């Protein structure tokens, strides 16, 4: 495994009275794809959203334990800076209701880049990075909501890339897409691995097998097993993992 970018130690999380994450500890290695799997409500999305503190937006959340990004406690650092480094792609494509160009430029502008030429370069690079440049280069001024689901999601990936993050969190990024759009996103994610650390939540176990290097299996807030993907799916170390991946529940 590569050197860890994010280290999680004894993480507990409560929504009000319900405990959604129980004593989670794991390391996320650099420039690889980590898949989080498990049945609905197991805490995988909650865990993902903890990594860039998106859970801060939910009222009544309480967190104990430590999460470090590059050795720094994320709860001590500036949250906006953290989210610049640890970007996010959501389950449903959520482009802003503005032009394609302005969607991509939103992040860089947020972080103080106003030079037109510089922005042009960033936008092109981000769109190329998300393999959508050729489709949209002639209509950068058009409203992003005019794109269909697959391209919208790649636009959202480009938007996240535009702030030059180190880590990309993806929350079931293909669950709202058709199979062809899904496979394009999967190809893209595997290409991005060479430059970014990717953590992806997925409901689709074939997807986890196809693209990820290591997989974490969550159940009812517990991290049951965390291992290299090949090993986890071929020789699961825990009976519950085996039952889940062979489709006996979930």
């Amino acid at each position, binding site marked *: 495994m590569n050197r860890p970018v994010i280290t999680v130690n004894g993480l507990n999380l409560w929504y009000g009275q319900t405990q959604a994450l129980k004593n989670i500890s794991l390391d996320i290695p650099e420039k690889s794809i980590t898949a989080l799997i498990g049945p609905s409500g197991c805490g995988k999305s909650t865990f993902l959203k903890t990594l860039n503190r998106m859970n801060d937006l939910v009222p009544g959340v309480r967190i104990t334990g430590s999460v470090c990004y590059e050795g720094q406690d994320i709860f001590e650092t500036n949250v906006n800076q953290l989210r610049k480094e640890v970007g996010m792609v959501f389950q449903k494509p959520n482009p802003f*209701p503005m032009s394609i160009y302005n969607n991509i430029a939103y992040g860089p502008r947020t972080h103080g880049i106003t030079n037109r030429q510089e922005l042009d370069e960033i936008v092109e690079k981000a769109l190329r990075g998300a393999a959508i440049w050729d489709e949209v280069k002639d209509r950068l001024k058009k409203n992003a909501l005019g794109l269909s689901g697959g391209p919208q999601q790649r636009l959202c990936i480009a938007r996240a890339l535009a702030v030059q993050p180190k880590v990309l969190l993806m929350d079931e990024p293909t669950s709202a897409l058709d199979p062809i759009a899904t496979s394009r996103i999967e190809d893209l994610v595997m290409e991005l691995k060479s430059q970014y650390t990717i953590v992806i939540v997925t409901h689709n176990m074939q997807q986890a097998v196809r693209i990820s290097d290591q997989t974490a299996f969550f159940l009812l807030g517990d991290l049951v097993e965390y291992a290299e993907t090949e090993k986890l799916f071929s020789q699961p170390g825990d009976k519950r993992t085996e039952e889940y991946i062979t489709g006996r529940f979930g």
Partner: protein
Amino acid sequence: MISNRRRLFLWTVRGGMYLAAALTGILTLFLVGYVMAKGIPNITWQLISTKPSYLSGNIGILPDILNTLYVVIASLAIVLPLGVGAAVYLTEYASSKRLVGVIEYAAEALSGIPSIIYGLVGMLMFSNNFGTCLLSGALTLVIMNLPTIMRNTQESLKTVPQAYREGAFGLGAGKWRVVRTVVLPGCIDGVLTGCILSVGRILGESAALLFTAGFAHALNGFWDGLSSAGATLTVALYVYAKEQGEFGVAFAIAAILMVLSLLINLAAVLVTKYFQRRNAV
């Protein structure tokens, strides 16, 4: 088979409904037609472009038109930032659900109060300090329209998808940047609707202004306008009809107001349609 009694009953009910519908239509048409017929012949260039003079016996409503314009602009200039600001605070920042509930309830209650009460309060609060003038009138109208602007903006803010906010936060944007760049542009339709409704209400308001802005028909300079007393069109309508017996002028004003309010309603419909179409993309 339907019995004859039953058939008679159905006919009566149906006839009654037709009659009610017809009466409603006829009454509305009659009212509009009557005001227009009586008013339009009295609208002359002389009337709308001069000020009244007791010496020459001239009657002109130019000052009243300008006063109306003044009051509309002054009220909106104050009420917009207040109302939109309050709405943004309540939906985006306020953490206490109870406080929000209390304020929303108060706003609902405020919008149901008869306008003459606003007039009375405005007189005590503003006219006693600034004098009877357009500024006092405008400030009174600010209080009256604050709930309209606030509630419309709030309802519209609630329709801005949470996903937009998440997307922006996820890119490292701070709260204020998210509100300014993603949330506020998404609620522009609510702000506009609130504005149009408020303008309609201001145009039609007389009771609150009788107390606070006075009846003067003088043409004041641009800068003195706000600090001088002045009648808006509706107040002038009252004065000409009730105190001077100039019914021709009163109907002319009424016709102008009616056309204006029709236009404003039309604008509200068009704005709503435009944004529905834009959001449907």
